[in-house]
């Protein structure tokens, strides 16, 4: 007996996650497409993924390290510390902003074929992840340059990468769904991302935040993730602020649940609104 599909108003898919699994090939193909066209018809191609974070690191090192003379974590070289912050931040912010526009950019697909819509923003985050892997190369070079050897903590880095992935997916799916209905978010988001770069501890260590404000500061989920990255990459030089990390994990989980739940609520009407 073939499976029976019932289409009616307001019906929630019973096999939502199973359906998502069945469409994993489309997910792979869409992610591959986004990757394949990303640097088409650019002169230096994939080098862009290296140049942008590298220049950001230079500027932040000069402004925060040299001019403002903010202290690094322990004895770690300032550029290295900055770069350990730029890595997760760039991953988070480019994942968030690209995924937020993903549904609108794929409007022709949404209005012509059925597939679980969640695939689209998720596939875009994969692209951000590949950029992340490429710019990881700079980190390796920097470490070699400063003769900085990582220790066992480096092995825990994947945990924080996964955390950063979910931290960007959660808000991204919510905003991309809202974006379909209210295009205002297209203009709000770049502003939020730019703002976030300065309120998150990217150019400086979160140690410069006074102790009594530390927990409040950790309400930004990226604080815990960036601290985690530094803890893994800089060996013993950076300390992990555990309440902040717990807060970060909690908020990420909440946004992930909230984002997906809102997304699913609006999903069925995307084709009519886009």
């Amino acid at each position: 007996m073939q499976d029976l599909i019932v289409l009616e108003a307001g019906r929630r898919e019973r096999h939502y996650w199973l359906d998502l699994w069945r469409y994993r090939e489309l997910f792979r193909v869409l992610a591959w497409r986004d990757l394949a066209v990303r640097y088409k018809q650019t002169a230096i191609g994939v080098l862009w993924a290296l140049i942008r974070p590298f220049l950001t690191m230079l500027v932040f090192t000069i402004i925060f390290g040299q001019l403002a003379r903010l202290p690094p974590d322990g004895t770690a070289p300032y550029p290295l510390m900055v770069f350990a912050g730029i890595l997760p931040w760039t991953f988070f912010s480019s994942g968030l902003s690209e995924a937020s526009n993903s549904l609108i950019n794929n409007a022709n697909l949404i209005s012509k074929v059925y597939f679980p819509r969640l695939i689209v923003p998720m596939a875009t985050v994969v692209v951000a992840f590949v950029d992340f892997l490429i710019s990881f190369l700079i980190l390796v070079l920097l470490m070699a340059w400063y003769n900085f050897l990582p220790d066992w903590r480096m092995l825990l880095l994947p945990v924080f990468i996964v955390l950063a992935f979910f931290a960007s997916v959660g808000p991204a799916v919510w905003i991309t769904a809202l974006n379909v209905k209210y295009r205002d978010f297209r203009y709000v988001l770049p502003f939020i991302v730019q703002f976030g770069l300065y309120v998150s501890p990217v150019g400086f260590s979160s140690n410069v935040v006074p102790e009594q404000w530390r927990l409040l500061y950790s309400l930004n989920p990226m604080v815990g993730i960036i601290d985690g990255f530094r803890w893994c990459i800089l060996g013993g030089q950076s300390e992990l602020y555990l309440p902040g990390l717990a807060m970060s994990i909690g908020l990420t989980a909440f946004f992930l649940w909230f984002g997906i739940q809102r997304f699913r609520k609006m999903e069925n009407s995307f084709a009519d609104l886009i």
Partner: protein
Amino acid sequence: MSDAVITIENLSKRYLLGHRSGGRGHNTLRDVITRGARNFARKAVDVFQGRQVVQGDEVEEFWALKNVSFAIQQGEVLGIIGRNGAGKSTLLKILSRVTEPTEGRVLVRGRVSSLLEVGTGFHPELTGRENIFLNGAILGMRQREIHKKFDEIVSFAGVERFIDTPVKRYSSGMYVRLAFAVAAHLEPEILIIDEVLAVGDAEFQKKCLGKIDEVSRRDGRTVLFVSHNLGAITSLCPNVIWLEHGSICEQGPTRPIIDRYLAHKISKDTIVLLTQFSRPPDWDDRLRLETLEWISGLPLRHGESVRARIRFRTRVPLAQVSIGIGFSTFDGRRLLTYETDFQDGLRPSINRPGVHSVDVTIDSLPLPPDLYDLDLGSKSGDSHQLDYLPSAIGLEIIPGLNTPGYIVNKDAGVRLASEWKWDLECETTSTFAPLSSLTVADCSTGRRASRDT
């Protein structure tokens, strides 16, 4: 249990449309500001309550489908006909799960593949090869399946030489052929096709129809087929459903229904009341087209003269008025336009409100014998729409007394008068190549079209 693969019960679909109140009463700065403020307040409330934002001053409900019920049996090939806006595409969108119904429900048994557009998701930067895999995955094919059929797809499309070229460098014909070739190799249990054959050249269309026919006959697949091409419907589908204003008008064996559909659609009245057609409620009402009279009579004949009179009523004095009629194919492609201001650029100002008329004479109707939709419209100035009736009436153009056979067979398209000068003096002594071979440029190979997907 019956072996219906698709069961549709009381299906309805509502859309919200926004309108701008046109024309009068909104011309002062104060009006503009109050209207803007009111709109802003309404949108803010909409966002706050999570409702859809609709542009415009007034929101109207529009039922694209209303209480549609029917069932499709296993292996049936069903055609769907109806005017533009009758709800055909909405129905297919619901069946392919792109959009959900507002009321009613659908039971679907089996894997559905829908082809609502040729080349959905094609990316111009990617090569033909890459796009086959991309498009295949989007249409629901497994990668393994695509690998297996890859060569077949490429040769069906006839693009072997260009398979590693980005599709943005393809001609539009190659693009369409490649796109359809992928779709034609789908193997779903239920195939839904919407008007995709309107593109592509006649020969390729035939090839595609043959492929669809083969798929449905040999493999016993269920096919739902929407087209304005009544010939294709007749040859493919034993049964049709005729949709009109979102409801089923008739359903059953194809031949008699298509005959009645044409009889219904093709106007035989020499005077057509244009006031009977509904306009949007807030449409600019300063001018209304009222009647169209075929002074030279119906049916229209190819190559012969046509005279018609359009009466219209104005409510207030109007400046720079022009009126036009257009002939379109049933799928909405405009072929021919006649406008009052074409020849002399003259657009009269109409100072006295009341009923006026304008006559048009077409010396020799150039469109080949076929069925057409007639559009009527009126403008003020270059762009302000006063009245517009798209696809208002269906018309049949029949061969005239002097229509040659190749026009009737649609081999020659539109044939217009032109001036030719023969030069039959021989120039065999010339050392240069004959003049004719220099001036003949091959236009067919230089054409390139890029596409947005």
